[in-house]
């Protein structure tokens, strides 16, 4: 089974449990898999595929409506407009007849199918303006989202809105925990291994990552509170408090570059990816894995920076 077939399988099943997803991923053909950046190193294939499907807006995992499992997103044409040209990216559920219909309907437009490792082919349709694509989506009975990156990013809370996250104590005992503290010293930002006792010591502040069975949990100790929150949000909140900038925007190349350990939160990243339809490319800059998002308009870069409480470099 290829990632394309996996998405067809998921679309036919519509929703399911995490175990069903893992079982389906186990059938994936690994021939095209590529190494992942350091932050994703050691991730199993099912994790890489899961994140790619999520980032590209095909499947939602662990959402309120889908319980602990996954649920397929209805087929949607995600539009973005730049330099007088509109592009639609096909996200969500796929079925062979649907794909055939869309391809036929886009016969007079530029239809693009680009394979990408560990995720389904990226399907894009280019048109002179957005209205053509909106009409096409309507004709084929699929949803359409105009100006997707902007709309998406505009509705995301910024990372400093941590009031909504759960207050939860850190584990105080246990042998299987790997405990690390996020340390920012001069130009160095890294995870430093500490003990559970040190993390729980009174007065200790900062971000802690506690991993058990390859599942990290992030706890932010600030003041008298300990908050459990997603890792990327916690990292960017810490950077915001320390006034560290990590987003580098190249206006000429229209690319946004950041270190792999600072991969943005899921929906923020989805907004960036839907500017092109492609997951970020991975490169090594001075020995450090770096992610580059392409075709990012400056406004979108600005919105991203605002959500992440960053200033662009």
């Amino acid at each position: 089974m290829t990632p394309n077939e996996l998405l067809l399988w998921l679309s036919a099943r519509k929703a399911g449990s995490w175990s069903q997803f893992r079982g389906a991923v186990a059938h994936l053909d690994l021939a095209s898999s590529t190494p992942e950046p350091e932050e994703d190193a050691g991730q199993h294939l099912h994790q890489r595929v899961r994140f790619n499907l999520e980032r590209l807006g095909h499947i939602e995992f662990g959402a309120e409506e889908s319980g602990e499992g996954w649920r397929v997103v209805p087929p949607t044409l995600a539009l973005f407009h730049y330099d007088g040209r509109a592009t639609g990216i096909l996200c969500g559920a796929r079925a062979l007849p649907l794909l055939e219909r869309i391809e036929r309907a886009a016969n007079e437009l530029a239809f693009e199918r680009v394979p990408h490792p560990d995720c389904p082919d990226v399907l894009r349709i280019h048109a002179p303006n957005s209205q053509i694509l909106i009409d096409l989506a309507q004709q084929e009975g699929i949803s359409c989202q105009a100006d997707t990156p902007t709309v998406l990013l505009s509705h995301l809370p910024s990372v400093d809105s941590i009031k909504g996250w759960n207050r939860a104590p850190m584990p105080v005992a246990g042998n299987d925990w790997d405990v690390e503290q996020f340390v920012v010293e001069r130009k160095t930002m890294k995870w430093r291994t500490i003990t559970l006792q040190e993390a729980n010591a009174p007065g200790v502040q900062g971000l802690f990552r506690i991993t058990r069975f390859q599942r990290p949990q992030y706890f932010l100790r600030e003041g008298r509170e300990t908050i459990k929150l997603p890792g990327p949000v916690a990292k960017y909140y810490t950077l915001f408090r320390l006034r560290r900038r990590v987003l580098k925007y190249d206006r000429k190349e229209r690319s946004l570059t950041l270190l792999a350990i600072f991969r943005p939160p899921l929906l923020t990243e989805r907004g960036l990816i839907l500017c092109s339809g492609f997951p970020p490319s991975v490169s090594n800059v001075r020995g450090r894995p770096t992610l580059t998002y392409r075709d990012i308009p400056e406004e979108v870069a600005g919105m991203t920076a605002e959500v992440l409480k960053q200033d662009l470099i």
Partner: protein
Amino acid sequence: MTKKNRMTPLFILAAIVAAPVVFWFVRRRAKPRAVKENTEAASATTSSGEVELETSPSEVPRPPESSVLVAEEEGAPAKLEELPSETPQPVDAAQSLDKPESNISLIQGDAAILDAAHVENNNSSVIEITEPSVMPEDDRPTEHQAAAAAVAGAEPETSQVYTTTVVLFPADNVRADETEEALARPEVKQSAELQAGPAGVQSEADICEEPDGAGTEENGPIAPSPQVSDDVPFLSPAETFAGHQETIAHDPPASGEPETQHVAAYTAMALTVSPPPEAGFAQVLSSEIGEPSEGDTGEGQHLYRPPPQRAPRQTPRPVTQSLSRSTSDLALDIRVQVRFDRFGFCEIRLLPERMAEMDNEVEVKTGGTELHLVAQEEWYQDLTFENIGDRLRRGLELKGLLADHRRARWLLTGRDIYILANQQRASGFVSTTRLVLGRSHVVLCAAELLPQVEAALKDAGCQGYTKLDQAHGIPSGWIGLRGVTPSIAVPLEPGIDAFYAVKPAPDIEIEFEGGVCLRNSIWLAGFPPRIKLLGDISAPVKVLIDGKEAVAAGDGSLVGDGYDQPGQHLVYCEGLSCSRSYSIEDPPDVWEEWPAYHFGQAEICGPRVHILPQAAGWRILSVPMSNPLLLGAEPGQIFRCSPRSVKNWKGFVPFDVVWALPAHPYICDKKTARIIQFAQTPLVLPGPKKHVLGWCAAILEASAKGLQIENASSDGTVLWKEYKKAARNLRRAAR
């Protein structure tokens, strides 16, 4: 003549007279002793023979702590020699343990303890039962016991029969009180500790011996190494059950043992313990799980282990107990999986099996190591081990407790040859029983067996396969053979064929490969399975799909009219009892919209953002960062763009913007700063608005500064004047 001198001849005379009597007496004593010695020797022989029978693949399991061999080797005859003649003596359990020469020590382990307790409670003689009595025809001992009795001669030792009885029917709960009482004694503990050990391990091995002469498990032959049969992990559920059947087959008759009360009672006790025959094999496993031993490390489970210094079990683990246990405990397999990457490098992993109702996550233990299993649909997460080569040889056992309190045990039986093939339920190659004609396999075999395996493969017509070694990811001591596709059926050797796995049978099978399988036998339309015929198809086989003759496609699969159309399909071979069915299902064409995330006034699902009605008036605007102060047509409609280090600000604004002003109109640079007009919307007459002063101040400040409108038109200038006038009036009114 003194008195002394007078007595001397009398003594001599008396000695002469007494000599024959003494000689007769001594001889009379020596005779039974010799008989006893002979009997004991015969007993040992007989018992050994029984043990052999018990440890043979088709034989009876023994309880873990019944160390018959040890008991006999440690000089039971010598102990008997020191018994006080024929006179039966009541034996106290503690006493018997204090004195190793006592007859009780003939039987060791838990059985001995039980025996001691039993004797103590009954206060009856063991040794007085030295002769068999005539028993009813139906109650005669089993064949083995009869043979033992024959070897023992005219005096089959009770202890011998007793041992056999204990082996077959170790006491269970019926004697639990007695057992525990005996265990409570320190002497007994010591005894148990001393007696546990190799024999105990071996007794477990007995449990997991192969039930029949096939010598195979699901995935090939049992490794010939003696270690292979040394521990529980070699026991597959089926084998256990089969072994149990053997146990039943060798059970002694209900009252068929010696006429003595003691043995009869013991037999009766054993029969009382015997559970109903319908109990399943899983129960045997549950007993093992239920009593995890401290010394169980999970490493080298199949190897000999010295006697662990540990407390004795509170309850024995008799084999017969298995039959009375709950059937809810689970015994599952661990399969071997081999996956190749694009460079041909392989990775070997272990796949614990999963049943539909099992937990998604289970914490399991293998020895001292704790693992966390995360479920896939039909498997748990594949496990990788650094010493996978050892695992393959020695097996792996995982034990865990499910959320519903059922115990689960996963087992990989160690062996020297593994056959792996593609499987619908998992990717890569997964271990299977044996080679199948026409199917491509991967064979993993111990390096030392390679010549024999290759010879067998040659017989099976396998050609062109590639050898894989450590450079390809195969563990040390193993060789991999990839692309093994047999074409000739190979008959098995009589009896146990160690190379069963590499000798394909001629059976014809219908196989479905590839496609997109939605679940069970249902495939997605557009992605039907490839239908293949495996086995000996040298003779023409007519395959029909839905009653129409199938034809071979280019890739060797079989296709027929409409075989890939939605609906149910049946594939069968004409004249053979070989058929399979599958169905094709259309994909859905409607997917409902649903909210995955809620953020303020929007719901997000994939790329779709559904803005709630209360935020429906918001619209996207892009404005230069130089003019972040946005004003609407209605006084009070003011919006300040968030600061961004970009040229243009883009985002949602809650009204139709008419004017965009500099952030601080009054202190901006007049030469460069401008007012930007976005719309020609006329001023809306002020209603009862409260917060209009900000809107007024922005307009009046920009006006006071004398800022010009960047895209000014004649109408724009007029409009701006109207806005200015309204702002002035509103501010005045507000004062």
